[in-house]
């Protein structure tokens, strides 16, 4: 019972954090994120000299994250190519003690299996996740070259079936940002799995 109450309090704390709003500056740029072999990196390092930064808060098990995973990887791989010059990072926010499928080993294993060409790292302190106000997986945050949030939300409007997608929110935001055009849809919503906070 005590454990249940504690979890409830933690979740309540998590959802009380305000999500970043479009126009906000990228926070937590110095938070160390852990990747393969324990290698640490920060958003500041990843974003340096890039046209923009795409941060995808995701995980290995959530059905929504899994359903969107191939599209996340395809977009990420496509946009890290040199001519597009975008920093892309997938961040796993979950406490691996509560979510055993989200250990660092399993994150690395997943990124290799699915051919990520961008870092898929662990927010071991959960400081970045909390600073972003992220509450669920998956959630996309796109920042421009000034580190200002220009899009927040879902990848597209159908997690289940890519063939039935009618709105490719993230790709449209990326294309608009690349061409210096106005991003028409800047905030979207989808369901997802609650982040497992400590």
């Amino acid at each position, binding site marked *: 019972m005590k454990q249940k109450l504690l*979890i409830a309090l933690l979740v309540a704390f998590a959802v009380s954090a305000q999500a970043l709003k479009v126009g906000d500056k990228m926070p937590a740029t110095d938070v160390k994120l852990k990747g393969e072999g324990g290698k640490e990196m920060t958003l500041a390092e990843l974003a340096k000299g890039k046209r923009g930064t795409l941060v995808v808060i995701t995980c290995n098990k959530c059905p929504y994250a899994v359903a969107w995973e191939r599209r996340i990887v395809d977009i990420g791989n496509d946009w890290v190519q040199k001519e597009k010059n975008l920093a892309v990072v997938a961040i796993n926010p979950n406490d691996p003690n509560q979510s055993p499928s989200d250990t660092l080993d399993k994150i690395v294993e997943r990124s290799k299996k699915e051919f990520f060409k961008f870092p898929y790292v662990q927010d071991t302190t959960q400081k970045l996740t909390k600073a972003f106000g992220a*509450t*669920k997986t998956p959630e996309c945050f796109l920042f421009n070259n000034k580190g200002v949030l220009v899009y927040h939300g879902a990848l597209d409007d159908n997690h*289940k079936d890519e063939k039935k997608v009618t709105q490719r929110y993230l790709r449209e935001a990326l294309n608009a940002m690349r061409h210096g055009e106005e991003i028409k849809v800047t905030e979207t919503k989808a369901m997802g799995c*609650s982040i497992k906070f400590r």
Partner: protein
Amino acid sequence: MKWVLSLLCLLAGCAREPADKMVKPVTAAQLLDAVRAPGARAVLVNVYATWCGPCKEEFPDLVKLEQNYRVKGLRMIFVSADDEDNMPAVKQFLAKQGVTYPTFLKAQKDMEFINGLDSRWDGSLPATLLYDGAGKQRDFWVGMKDYKTFEDKLKPILEEKP
């Protein structure tokens, strides 16, 4: 209109289908019709999914709440956010939880459904909304909560004069 009538019938318990078959597709607008249907002093809407750990952990408290406060006028409305092809798992889950009244399955795109219920909701599960008998929203929770949290907010509404 036909949908509302059949809904009223379902909520009044006049359907004779086995409970595990009474999982009806629903949009946010239809759900709000169900909330406003006469006969309840308070309504709790809980959006869950069978793949959502905190939802499953919270669920028995809501079932117990319904059992304890049904006679005082609580209407409990469970809405699964599972995909339609996950219906067998939804029915199995409800049967295991001992839910013997009609429930629903989200049948609308996420963003329309989320904003249709409450624009403050970011889509995290579980989400629970509390309404009074007139259909006015009185509280809203995102994330797992416990029996007492719900009960503390529910009781004063049930005790209000009609």
